[in-house]
């Protein structure tokens, strides 16, 4: 039995726990974590009246699936070099709220620290940074287009070291308009970086509007295929089981000479009706009334607010 199998095996959970790896086998718990992460996101952004709720909400399932179930990772002590662990790189750094929430709730740092998001002297910078030593972050992001390159570098290092674990990376879809992304995409295919799984948050939105209107990505699967990648399309990026299944499928597709990409359709703002399916909430904080409405839609969980 490998960790690619669904449903997950309790024995694997046990094994991982013993080595101090994080692993959550219980799907109902993962669902609850999703719900709590959404509350965290909205509360964090509301709290400082700044930050990016839209993309964050849309990627809650992805992060919970990854950190809760798919990734082999040891939150404590956090090791920058990640030897014999899976490593994750967030390229679209503006969706830091969802990452911070999931990092905190999987044990990287105290959940209470979420309260410091974007405030002076915080480790939870507006965009993820290593500068203040926040556990879980390996390369700063925020200026778009750079994360895939770093992920590839880490993947090459693992290959050199004979380390069989995986590198994961998330990028935005608007972010793919940056040329550096295509440099990285070309490089990974040429160098057969096949221990790498990139996911694109294919929400069809960016700051100035729908991606199709701002700068169309056209036939996105065709683009990645033409660049030599193994392309998986996930229609239900806000369905936790579907995300987990897809991430596992992607892992099985690695090691075959091609980098793997998951084009993951999500809905920006998912879970808060007035934020959903529009670019308007890319980087805007709710006011008190909107916040109250959002909190009503996102039920309290047993995990508790920070």
């Amino acid at each position: 039995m490998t960790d690619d199998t669904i449903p997950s095996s309790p024995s694997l959970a046990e094994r991982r726990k013993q080595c101090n790896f994080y692993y959550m086998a219980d799907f109902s718990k993962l669902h609850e974590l999703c719900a709590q992460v959404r509350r965290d996101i909205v509360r964090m952004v509301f709290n400082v009246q700044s930050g990016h709720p839209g993309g964050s909400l849309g990627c809650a399932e992805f992060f919970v699936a990854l950190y809760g179930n798919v990734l082999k990772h040891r939150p404590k002590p956090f090791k920058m070099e990640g030897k014999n662990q899976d490593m994750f790189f967030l390229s679209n750094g503006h969706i830091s709220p969802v990452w911070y929430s999931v990092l905190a709730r999987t044990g990287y740092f105290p959940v209470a620290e979420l309260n410091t998001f974007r405030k002076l002297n915080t480790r939870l910078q507006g965009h993820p940074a290593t500068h203040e030593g926040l556990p879980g972050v390996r390369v700063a992001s925020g200026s778009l287009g750079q994360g895939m390159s770093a992920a590839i570098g880490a993947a090459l290092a693992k290959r050199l070291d004979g380390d069989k674990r995986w590198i994961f990376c998330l990028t935005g879809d608007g972010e793919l308009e940056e040329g550096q992304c295509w440099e990285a995409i070309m490089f990974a295919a040429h160098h057969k970086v096949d221990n790498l799984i990139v996911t694109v948050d294919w929400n069809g939105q960016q700051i100035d509007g729908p991606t199709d209107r701002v700068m169309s990505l056209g036939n996105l699967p065709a683009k990645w295929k033409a660049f030599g990648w193994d392309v998986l399309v996930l229609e239900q990026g806000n369905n936790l089981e579907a995300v987990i299944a897809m991430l596992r499928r992607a892992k099985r597709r690695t090691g075959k000479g091609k980098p793997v990409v998951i084009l993951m359709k999500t809905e920006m703002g998912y879970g808060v009706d007035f934020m959903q399916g529009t670019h308007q909430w890319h980087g805007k904080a709710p006011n008190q009334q909107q916040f109250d409405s959002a909190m009503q839609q996102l039920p309290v969980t047993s995990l508790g607010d920070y």
Partner: protein
Amino acid sequence: MLKNIVSSGSRATREGFGAGLLELGRQNPDVVGLTADLMESLQMHHFQKEFPERFFQCGIAEANMMGIAAGLATAGKIPFTGTFANFSTGRVYDQIRQSIAYSHKNVKICASHAGLTLGEDGATHQILEDIGMMRMLPGMTVINTCDFNQTRAATIAIAAHHGPVYLRFGRPAWPVFTPDNQKFKIGKALHLASGKDVTIFATGHLVWTSIEAAKELAEQGISCEVINIHTIKPLDDEAILDSVSKTRAVVVAEEHQRNGGLGDAIANLLVHQMPVPMEYVGVKDSFGESGKPLDLLDKYGLGKKDVLWAVKDVLDRKK
């Protein structure tokens, strides 16, 4: 004189840019706008709404935007590019260098969200090296405006200047204190207050901070000359040397690294022409961080208190 400088309220410098660009659009059909998925942040939506066919959305691709601007300029247009200061400079330095500066293209690189006052987005966005980069480029005009009115006026003025321009402004609402009907003269330092003990040269948001500091110093009997260096390149050597020959002590205040910016530009001039004691108010070789604009200015040594200290330090050394 200092007392007469008062704020008539607060507005963001970038709004001045937006207003100026709209006016330009009405005046000059050759003016075109470009953005890289930051239209409203740059306040370019006013222009876009009225002149949709003269506005080009480039998506998140700043390098390409600079090249396209160069091409538009080649064919006689006057392109105004708009994105954050970080993505207007460091992201595209080589493109600006070759396709715009070296090629003498009449492109106006308009950059918002410069410096620490960007606030919560943090260090990845808080460029503190852009003035330094742009002033190294031969042929580049480098302007950093101090308030809404000046930014509006500068936006209009640079369209009438043939050649590449870097126009830097910021994100937050900021005191407005310059006249609303001003003419902006590129390269002409603005003498704000006369004094005899020290000259404060300031640019951008820190002009207001310096005025406030100078007012406080005046009460303490220290007489500051305050000069607004809105144009960092070409530098108004004459105005600077005139003032320094009188005060023989200099403080430079800018929302920028102490390395490479206006401070170094003035130091460069003074060590050649008139070496005198100088102090810098600027970021001390560090990255910024998330926080509120004023808190950040305070933490990183760019507040009123820091101008006060710098003046006192330099006066100590003048003795």
